[in-house]
């Protein structure tokens, strides 16, 4: 093996990425021609890079192509008592949601915003828009997989609850997921009717201390009905119109009042 060049691994690596200036690239090429072992190492790296891309490229899915579409309705199973289901965002296991706030990023929306519950409508809207388009992963855990998660979900948001039954209104539970809402754990439940209309219920810790009545808001084409009940804030979001939203919201409100 040749030792007549001084091409180190960093330089070889940079050559592979086309990040060397022309003079050094020429030097690397000369060394590659003279040193089969170096050339073999580069070939190995190149094929490994290609293997990594092949391994992970298929996951590059999602986005605009994921428009709402009808689910296989047969899969939607409505249970007598449908429990909320969700799954942890893995990192929250140890420190709870608050580590999230310590990520060295720009601060979340100002605390002043939290004084009113306008943040709730905004968050609910964004959560809805984020997941309503998802065909593959709208929920973390489906309606048929709730059993092993009930206790855990109760611990996470410090309120055990059951998912409202909305069959009478044509909506079946699709599933749910756990989300960080304002730095605290919150839950999202997604429902869908036979036409493929989706609706989300966001259940979050209420940072304020007051109850509120129903409040309607609209933005980005999404209608949201929200209210605060002691330590818990609720927000229902959907694309469909206000009367329909009010009807389901009343049913959901009754359910949570009684549970």
């Amino acid at each position: 093996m040749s030792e007549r060049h001084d091409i180190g691994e960093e330089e070889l690596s940079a050559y592979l990425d086309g990040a060397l200036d022309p003079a050094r690239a020429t030097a690397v090429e000369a060394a590659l021609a003279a040193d089969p072992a170096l050339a073999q190492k580069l070939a190995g790296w190149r094929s490994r890079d290609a293997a990594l891309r092949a391994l992970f490229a298929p996951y590059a899915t999602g986005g605009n192509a994921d428009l709402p579409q009808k689910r296989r309705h047969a899969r939607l199973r409505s249970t007598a008592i449908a429990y909320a289901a969700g799954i942890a965002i893995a990192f929250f296991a140890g420190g709870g949601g608050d580590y999230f706030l310590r990520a060295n990023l720009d601060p979340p929306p100002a605390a002043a915003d939290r004084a009113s519950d306008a943040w709730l409508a905004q968050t609910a809207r964004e959560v809805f828009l984020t997941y309503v388009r998802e065909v593959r992963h709208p929920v973390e855990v489906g309606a048929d997989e709730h059993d092993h998660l009930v206790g855990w979900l109760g611990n996470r948001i410090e309120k055990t609850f059951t998912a409202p039954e909305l069959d009478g209104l044509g909506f079946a539970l699709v599933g749910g997921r756990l989300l960080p809402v304002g730095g605290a754990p919150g839950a999202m439940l997604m429902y869908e009717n036979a036409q493929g209309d989706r609706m989300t219920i966001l259940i979050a810790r209420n940072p304020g201390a007051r109850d509120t009545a129903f409040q309607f808001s609209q933005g980005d084409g999404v209608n949201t009905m929200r209210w605060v009940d002691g330590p818990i804030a609720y927000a229902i979001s959907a694309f469909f119109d206000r009367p329909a939203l009010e009807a389901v919201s009343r049913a959901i409100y009754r359910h949570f009042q009684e549970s």
Partner: protein
Amino acid sequence: MREALIAHLPALRRYAYGLAGARADAEDLLQATVLRALEAAPGWRRENLRAWLYTIMTNLYRNGLRANARGPGLEAIGEADHVAAPLANPDPLLRSRLNTALATLNPEMRAVLMLVVLEGCSYAEVAQIAGVPVGTVMSRLSRARTQLSGLLQDEAVVYLNRGEKRP
């Protein structure tokens, strides 16, 4: 902002799998990143959105590993098996060997490797995302490649000593 974010979702999901590997962890990482981006959107100063999203994900990934190191993970909760995922590689053995080898990289090395190889970021971009000088990016990258080579190259058991220079 949201439309722009949606346009970046495929790349973000790919990067999440490149970092976290396992399906549930990767989807969680993606969701946490999207949520964090939406929450922090008012503070976003209209810089390079792609780099900003990669920065959030890289930070969450590193923080998540540290959080997991302190306490128990969430494996017991179970993977959402009903969630369809593409079959990433037709050769399960190669896939498994790659994943095993990747798991030996430290998070900093893995992030740099994935940003360059998978996401096609320039060294300067990676330096910005990871918050380190370009020289550090280069050394992490070459160490990651060397380490993977040592673990994956069948005939190259001799490389396993991880020495910087081979005889």
